[in-house]
């Protein structure tokens, strides 16, 4: 199938950062090559920014948000179900696409073995273009997933997983793995896409990172930076990581258990930080204040948070996999999932 014959649907997943949606849609309107359709999912309709966007961009389709139940996050799947393109592209509302973005993102699809293509997400962090170039979107043998989606290796490369924005999949590839899962990743957005990417890779699909397909997402950088310092974020990261490995690769795959061991091996770092903060003086010789000395045990508090996140991943994955199986059974019998 030639590239010219591929129709493209861009699905904007609204995370409801006020005001960002308008800028995102304006950039989509200015693309060099227009997609066949643009769908906006997950937007809160009573948000004034969304109401303005609907008036300003009548050519784009706004899908009513489906109320999330429990740990469900239906936006991606809703978008795919409502779209018609041969390739579905996911972008979130904090992203601003460059005019040539879609052209570059579609380029690797000339190779029919390519199941998905993601692009570069420039968060505006100094040095991000050069940091971690050999560790972009890798599933490492120790179970860790690397990101570094802001890095620019200078040419398209293969990856194991994808960022939470600026991602595309061939529709037939998504259908071959039963689509994007709705239920199970209540933490930060984008795990559904990682899950889909890992399942595609496990089935032998090729995923490409195309650095020339750039979106700028400065808001995403700010929010992540703030959240990363919270116990809640740390807990959900560990839990969801175990879940995504178990759901995508199965209980028998050693990577989940290696990830457990990797996390346990990292815990002495917290103890080391605690010991380093015990002395009366800083390494530079300046005196440590009483408040700092009282806060010295703080690094140790991360140990139960991380380990309980790991432990919580197993029952959560068990329940999620049971739902997956029930959903698959209903799909086979023709019943609604």
């Amino acid at each position, binding site marked *: 199938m030639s590239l010219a014959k591929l129709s493209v649907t861009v699905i904007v997943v609204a995370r409801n950062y006020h005001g960002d949606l308008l800028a995102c849609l304006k950039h989509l309107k200015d693309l060099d090559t227009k997609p066949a359709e643009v769908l906006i999912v997950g937007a809160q309709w009573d948000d004034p920014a969304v109401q303005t966007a609907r008036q300003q961009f009548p050519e784009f389709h706004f899908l009513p948000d489906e109320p999330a139940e429990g740990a469900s996050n239906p936006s991606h799947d809703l978008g795919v179900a409502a779209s018609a393109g041969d390739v579905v592209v996911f972008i979130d509302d904090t992203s601003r696409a460059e005019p040539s973005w879609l052209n570059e993102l579609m380029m690797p699809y000339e190779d029919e073995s390519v199941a998905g293509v993601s692009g570069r997400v420039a968060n505006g962090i100094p040095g991000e273009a050069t940091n971690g*170039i*050999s*560790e*972009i979107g*890798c599933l*490492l*043998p*120790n*179970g860790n997933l*690397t990101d570094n989606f802001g890095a620019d*290796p*200078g*040419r398209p*490369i*293969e*990856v194991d997983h994808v960022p939470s924005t600026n991602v595309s999949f061939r529709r037939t590839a998504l259908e071959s793995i039963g689509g994007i899962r709705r239920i199970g990743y209540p933490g930060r957005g984008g795990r559904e896409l990682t899950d889909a990417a890992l399942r595609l890779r496990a089935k032998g699909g090729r995923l490409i990172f195309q650095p020339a397909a750039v979106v700028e997402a400065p808001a995403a950088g700010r929010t992540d930076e703030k959240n990363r310092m919270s116990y809640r974020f740390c807990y959900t990261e560990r839990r969801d990581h175990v879940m995504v490995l178990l759901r995508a690769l199965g209980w028998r795959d050693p990577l989940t258990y*290696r990830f457990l061991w*990797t996390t346990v*091996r*990292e815990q002495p770092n917290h103890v080391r930080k605690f010991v380093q903060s015990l002395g009366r003086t800083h390494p530079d010789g300046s005196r440590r204040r009483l408040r700092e000395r009282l806060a010295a045990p703080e690094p140790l508090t991360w140990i139960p948070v991380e380990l309980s996140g790991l432990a919580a991943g197993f029952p959560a994955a068990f329940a999620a996999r049971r739902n997956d199986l029930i959903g698959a059974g209903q799909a086979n019998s023709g019943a609604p999932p």
Partner: protein
Amino acid sequence: MRVTAYVLVADPNFLSESLRSYYHHVDRIVLSYDKTSVSWTGTAIPVQECLDVIETVDTNNKCVHAPGSYARLDHDPLDNDTHQRQQALDLASEGADWVLQLDTDEVMLDPEQFFRSLHRAESLGASAMDYPSRWLYAQVGPGRFLEASTRFGRPAASFPGPLAIRAGTQLVQARQAEVPLYRVDLRPWNTDPHHNHGSTVHEVISPESAVLHYSWVRDHATIRRKFGWSGHAQDYSQPVVYQRWARRQRRPRQSVLTSPLRRSEWYRLVTVPEGVGK
């Protein structure tokens, strides 16, 4: 993917086995040697003997001679090492995507796996590949060797520098370069005691697929000469280094059993199959 190689011609030990292990996988091999047969430290090296060995291996005329003046005695031996390698790498880079930089006492046990890993490194956008070497310390019997290990005798990798590097790279010291690395190891976590605990491992292979580095596997006369011409001559030429090596070679079991009690220099006894690289 076009792959070439360069070798520094100085040591005939294991040269034939080393070249044969990857000869059929590369397009060209640059032979770099000092035209006066003098080492980086000013000692004599058997260049002609090495070239004779290479002639028997080079059945497809892949080897290209690149003599030069590398015995710059007013420079540090390691600087000379880097200088010679850079010259050889630049020559080998012509018309190549990747260049192998194995020493002549390093033998690939599983070339197919090595080149599979290299293709993976290429597809991930890396510019150099760290591939695990098993460092052999001394031969203690027919096919039996003392090999560097973890404290409790598990296989340990050593990484003297990237064994494959993208053509045109600038070296920093010896084989090292500051470029994005693809790291292959023997376990999912770093096994080299000289590397950072948290070093990223991209791929895991079995010890049977590693590179065997016959680093100090020599007879007594040769090891003393090697200590003299090495880039690390200043450290190795201390009498205690040779004495320790000779004692451990004489009493290998004792060396293995006392390993957990030492702070470093841990060994295990291994058998290497005959005919490796042949």
